[in-house]
């Protein structure tokens, strides 16, 4: 089995992220599976950026601790990460820029490759931004990859630039490739052999996948205010807006973001917004407005470590209970948390249907780890996913015309009322933020209040009957231990499981609210031993499950350093606790 991790580090602003992205894309195009993880501070220039790409001929779910090839564009990368390189691995660095005397070389057998990035640039009069292509050229050689695939990627990447820029970047890659070839010791075995059967795959981030799914689902209005880790969703949709007929609005603040989307949804357009914890905090009053006006909306809530500004470019699952409780007053909301890009696609499409069926806010809870990491996924899974656009009880003009009287908040058995759109003949109504009766007019009468509260609550019961999905159990049912988690932690857990199939199985929650208390309780009661794994300090899923079932979770693996959980950490914890 081939399983290689390449780590590239350097100062922010030198194209490190692009290098990693292209490497992953090239590996995917060559038929390999790839997974990317990056770490960078909340700075534009300076600071230390690293990106790692794991490449394998088998499915990879997450990053791993050990590195095979470390490419250092500055001294800091060498000294911070050299110890992560495993026995027999390679470190590439610029001897002219990084003095030997300052290096902390680890005490294992490594191959050091000297590539003078800076003098290559100077000698060939290339600009500093092309340094990343010298690095990619070097990596192409080390991996044994085809330089032509890189050249094709460069041509695509610079499609809008003139031929001279394309030629210079291709030259940079060639120089990096040739220099590395010269530097490598005899008998070096290239890492990635040419694969015979190349399965077409996408190399895509969580943000891009949510965006792609929203296009598929007929979302026609997206509003956001930039905030890591969800900004890239705004960038992707803004770049595609004219191609897919969507209006993408960067509004003045998050309060405006959610209220514009509610206006657009009230007027009949499928609408989505995206933010992170701090921005979402500003939106909370309007989540409640969506609840009482029964206006559909899809909210992408990308978590990052808080409180307040916290660690903007890092990852955490610290906002599950915040989202669960967001919005004053009582009203149903639906919480979904995809664990990988495939789930992100399917759940985003589902979210749009659920928002319109139940006329209430539906959340897609992500995090930096899921949303900013690229990973490969079979193209056929995305292309072949069959779905229907279900707009619930949205009335057509024909249906509306047949009614003798239209009541926006009609009491119904399932709690869901027929919805008409302003502009339709006979649609006259108001969506009212005040407590109201069936016709939408303000009412403070006790019996009217009770009926409308119960009507809204009923929607949660209807959801549990018709659309709720139980958590999925991965692995062998009979193992002695069950790991329990949600969202992006699925990645390191499945990665750990791929090595030790019979040690544990995994219960993955992606439908987080409302929960079917009885079914969940009886399922949880069947497990012999459990280990709760979460990327937060409060075991928030554990708290939620205890609230719902009364069951307690004793054993936990919780991580809240701003870094994702590694498969190695899961295996350590399991061998310790069994």
């Amino acid at each position, binding site marked *: 089995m081939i399983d290689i991790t390449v780590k590239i580090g350097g100062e922010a602003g030198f194209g490190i992220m692009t290098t990693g992205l292209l490497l992953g894309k090239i590996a995917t195009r060559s038929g390999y599976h790839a997974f990317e993880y990056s770490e960078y501070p909340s700075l534009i220039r300076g600071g230390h950026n690293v990106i790692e790409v794991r490449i394998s001929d088998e499915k990879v779910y997450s990053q791993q601790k050990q590195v095979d090839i470390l490419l250092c564009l500055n001294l800091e990368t060498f000294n911070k990460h050299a110890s992560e390189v495993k026995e027999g691995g390679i470190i590439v660095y610029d001897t002219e820029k990084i003095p030997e005397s300052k290096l902390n070389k680890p005490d294992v057998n490594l191959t050091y490759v000297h590539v003078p990035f800076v003098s290559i640039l100077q000698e060939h009069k290339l600009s500093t931004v092309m340094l990343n292509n010298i690095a990619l050229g070097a990596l192409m050689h080390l991996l044994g990859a085809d330089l032509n695939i890189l050249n094709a990627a460069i041509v695509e990447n610079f499609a809008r630039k003139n031929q001279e820029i394309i030629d210079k970047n291709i030259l940079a890659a060639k120089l990096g490739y040739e220099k590395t070839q010269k530097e490598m010791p005899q008998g070096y075995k290239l890492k990635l052999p040419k694969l015979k059967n190349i399965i077409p795959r996408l190399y895509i981030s969580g943000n891009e996948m949510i965006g792609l799914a929203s296009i598929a*689902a007929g979302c026609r209005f997206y509003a956001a205010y930039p905030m890591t880790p969800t900004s890239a969703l705004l960038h992707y949709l803004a770049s595609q807006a004219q191609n*897919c007929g969507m209006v993408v609005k960067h509004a003045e603040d998050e309060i*405006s973001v959610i209220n514009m989307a509610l206006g657009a949804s*009230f007027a009949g357009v499928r609408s989505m917004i995206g933010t992170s914890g701090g921005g979402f905090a500003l939106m909370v009053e309007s989540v409640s407005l969506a609840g009482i006006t029964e206006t559909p909306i899809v909210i992408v809530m990308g978590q990052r470590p808080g409180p307040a500004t916290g660690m903007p470019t890092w990852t955490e699952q610290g906002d599950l209970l915040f989202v669960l409780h967001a919005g004053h007053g009582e009203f149903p909301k639906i919480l979904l948390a995809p664990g990988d890009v495939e789930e992100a696609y399917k759940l985003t499409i589902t979210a749009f249907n659920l928002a319109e069926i139940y006329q209430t806010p539906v959340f897609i809870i992500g995090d930096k780890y899921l949303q900013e990491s690229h990973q490969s996924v079979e193209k056929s899974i995305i292309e072949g996913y069959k779905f229907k656009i279900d707009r619930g009880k949205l009335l057509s003009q024909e249906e509306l015309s047949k009614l003798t009287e239209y009541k926006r908040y009609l009491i119904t058995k399932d709690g869901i009322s027929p919805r008409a759109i302003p*502009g339709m003949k006979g649609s006259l109504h108001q969506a009212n933020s005040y407590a109201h009766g069936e016709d939408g007019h303000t009412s403070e*009468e006790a019996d009217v209040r009770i009926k409308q509260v119960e009507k809204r609550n009923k929607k949660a019961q209807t959801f549990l009957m018709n659309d709720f999905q139980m958590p999925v159990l991965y692995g062998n049912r009979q193992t002695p231990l069950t790991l329990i988690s949600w969202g992006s932690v699925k990645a390191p857990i499945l990665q750990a499981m791929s090595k030790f199939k019979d040690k544990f199985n995994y219960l993955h929650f992606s439908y987080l609210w409302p929960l079917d208390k009885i079914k969940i309780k009886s399922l949880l009661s069947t497990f012999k031993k459990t280990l709760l794994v979460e990327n937060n300090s409060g075991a928030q899923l554990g708290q939620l499950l205890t609230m719902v079932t009364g069951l307690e979770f004793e054993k936990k693996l919780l991580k809240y350093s701003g870094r994702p959980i590694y498969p190695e950490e899961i295996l350590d914890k399991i061998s310790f606790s069994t």
Partner: protein
Amino acid sequence: MNNNNSIPPTPASPKPVAPVSEHTAGFSGYFPTWCPGCGNFGIWQALKMTFNKMKFDPDRLSIVFGIGCSGNMNDFLWANSFHALHGRAIPNAIGIKIANHDLPVVVIVGDGDCYGEGGNHFLHAARGNHDITVIVHDNRVYGLTTGQVAPTASQGFKSKSTPQGIIEVPVNPIALAVSQGATFVAQGFSGDMNQLVELIEKGVAHKGFSLVNIFQPCVTFNQINSYNWYRDRIYKLTSENHNPRDLNSAWQKSQEVTEKIPLGVVYDVDRPTYTDSLPQLSGKPLLDSALNIDLAQFINDFV
């Protein structure tokens, strides 16, 4: 205990319905609960008369109401409406307009709602030249919360929240709108319904962001800025004393806030609206675009 059984059923109290004339037909809802003599009555009548004059259909008119005494008009004025949160009516209205730019969209708010809680939205809606009409009830006081100071209150005004008098100088709505890119700015007085109908009609007909700031005496909580206080100061803008297409003249008029106060169209210029600037909306409203789309081109970007 079941909630249904714990409280005896009370019949919904019958609400008196507002009188309907040929000028107000179709838009009249329940009879207002405002204090007798409230300046809101004049604005309410003027709105209904304008909509009838413009031959609007209540089904095809969208009104977003704010929260406050003015926002309570939601039950007195029939149209397809969204009753917003305090301060947030403008972004709701922008969303409706983007979704369906064929619908006329009117925002009915108070001065605290629009210039206080929602001040940021007001600035940015003007910049974007979103084609909505914002009708502000400017009474210089918070009525529904029983008499605190509003951002439009004169400096030194004493209220429940400023018993020693307000320290800040008032917001200048007209200057604010003119300076931030609004393309239609007018000022009216609820004591002059005929002029109000004219101003609201021009504002709604205007393509782009329009503000109609309306002086509306609060007879309960503001004893200073009464009908007579305004009548002693207001005068009408005419083609003789003002050119609304001239920014300098508009700016000068916007500075007249104490001794002489102008009523009429202060500023009226043309600039492409937000929705007219989006190629995606050039054919038909966003609402009418097909939901199914060929995904292949989007998927292939990631191969």
